[in-house]
């Protein structure tokens, strides 16, 4: 049986807790009695025996699929608006810095007379 399916056979969420595995087994046993559902019981027993081994339990827990969509949403809530905000203020700062640099580039080094000429201002 694939490691990723072991927890679902017991009807529990992936866990590292051996007691939770035992609880899940006995809860599932009610629905898969050996007399009435021998195949279900065999699967249940197989999963329980596998998860009773600490090394296999650890490996199954680590390899159990995660809800990545949900995780992505959590991280989006945690970071995305902050990142967008930081990006906006960064862009604004950059635009300002760029404009100031252009202003300095344009006027620092030009003479007073040239400045008046460029701005089409009267010399006196």
């Amino acid at each position, binding site marked *: 049986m694939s490691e*990723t399916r072991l927890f679902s056979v017991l009807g529990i969420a992936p866990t*590292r807790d051996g007691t939770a595995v035992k609880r899940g087994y006995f809860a599932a046993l009610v629905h898969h009695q050996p007399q009435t559902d021998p195949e279900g019981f065999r699967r249940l027993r197989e999963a329980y025996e596998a998860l009773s081994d*600490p*090394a*296999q*339990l*650890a*490996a199954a*827990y*680590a*390899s*159990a*699929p*995660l809800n*990545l*969509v949900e*995780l*992505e949403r959590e*991280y989006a809530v*945690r*970071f995305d608006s*902050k*990142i*967008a*905000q*930081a*990006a906006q*203020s*960064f862009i*604004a700062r*950059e*635009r*300002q810095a*760029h*404009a*100031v640099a*252009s*202003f*300095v580039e*344009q*006027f*620092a*080094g030009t*003479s*007073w*007379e040239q*400045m*008046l000429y460029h*701005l089409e*201002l*009267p010399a006196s």
Partner: protein
Amino acid sequence: MVGAQNVKEAEVTVHAFMQLPVEERALQIDRVGEVFRAAVQADYRAKNWSKLTSWAHQAENVTGLDGSVGSFEFCETHWALTWGSVITKEFERARLWYEPLHALLMQRSPDFAEAMLAMVNGKPSLELVAPFLKAKPVLDPRLGYEPSRKKVSWVMPSTEGEVEPTLLALVAQEPWGVVASTVTQWSLKSSEAVSKAMWLLAAQLAVREVVKRTGAHHHQASSHVEFFRKAVEALRAPPCLSADALLIFRILAAKMPSEIDSAAHTRELTHAAVAASAYGAHRPLVVAVVTQLKCAVSAGVPLLGLLEHLALQASEMALVGKAMLLLTSTVEAPRVQPFFLRAFSTLLSQQGTLVSEWFEGLSDANRFHLTEWMAAACSFELSQTFLLAVWSQASSRSRRSLIALVENVLLRANHEEVPAERGDVLNAPLAAKARAFWAAVRTLVLPDAPEFLEFALVNAQSGDDLNPLVQAGLGLNPDVRHMLDVWDIVRRLKHVALTNDVERQLLTRYGRDTSALALAVLTAYERAFPLSFKRKLAEALVAAVEGLQLTPHIRSALVLAQRWLVSRKTAQPRAAKAGRKSKTSRKKRTPPPESGFVPV
């Protein structure tokens, strides 16, 4: 135009002027002022901002050097010294030089005057300067013009408060490679607190990237995971990243294929495993996953690196065992091989039972690969220690692998000593290199590998050494033919006392067993044993069958036995008469009569 030489002269002139008493300065002010203004203009045209600041500093308390107020040269000098101070960020001085110009500009263009005022105050504003910027020509990509991406020079955060906005903006604007290298560089230059804050936030952002990339898009996230590992290491596994470390490891472990066939996948998982294993609570989980990974040969080397890292923290059987199995198939791992052999050796000496249990738990194929590799690549001492440690608990299937190990070690020793030698190791002499190995393991393997008996007896070092081997050999098999084999080997070794001892044991053990004795007689006939021995068997058989109902094969044997005994009665007097010992008849042997049983 004022040249460099003249600027130098101007400096000297102004300096000398400044040394004069105030009342004498008035006499020189016109001439020196002219020199000063010319020098300022020269430095302004050359954009020599620091020199302009120096001029501004020297002249700020001297009236008249800048010319008459409102004059053209006055404005030019003030304009130049204003910009010199602005650019060197001497805003107070800039304000001082700009002040007379501001009034003039307010009359001509109040907006520009305000923009300049903000500039000299060190608080330039986009809204104020924008109207005075020249419009740039529009670049059209269709004409082959691509707007060049302006390289942003990021300012390193200097306080903890600056870390978050800077890093978040960095992540928003730059590809991850730039983020990772920038944070790494900044962390080297920052204070401890700022560096810590940077690693922490950047690590969390790396987790976000891993989640994003592996979630919807199934992209590789190697560089992000690697960065996260570096962050955990740099921060010495802070508790606040523990959950993130586990999360990244689980994400990658869950997406690994059932058999990893790419080194890139292994590397990605390796980074996550190293980060997670930095937390003691996650280590068992990491070890459990890593030791159960199946990977192709190409992906084995990075995995060996990970196993080494984990084994350096604590050398567990599962890790070392996994590494040993990987080493059997990964030839490109000379770096880690000595490490794991040492670790394996230590485990053997300290926790032999664990090694034994691990070996028992392997599949037949893995056991075969391991023992074959061990015989070829490990020292004889390690093979010996391993065999002695696991033999007692080994199942019969495992013992077959261990016997193959013995055979391969002997074969290797033979080949190393006589490279041209090939063929059956049991028929070759024992190589000197393997003597200690063989002496240590022979009594263990003999009961399970009787095929080694002759080799063991032939290669015994002395009579004392031979005796226990013979006794062990006799106990290997209750069949009389096996005992005859042992007797025959000892006889060929020309060890008379031991030959007689085996003879005695045989006759004692089977003296009343007519069937076994008959079989012994027939075997002796087939193998042409010396007549003296055959007669002893014959006597025993004749004595044993007295008064018994005979089966055909016993009857055949009896006929042979009686013939041997008769030949002795007739041969002995003839030999005595001729003065020589009796010898075995040189006549061609004939099958025993009247039985239908024909010895082959």
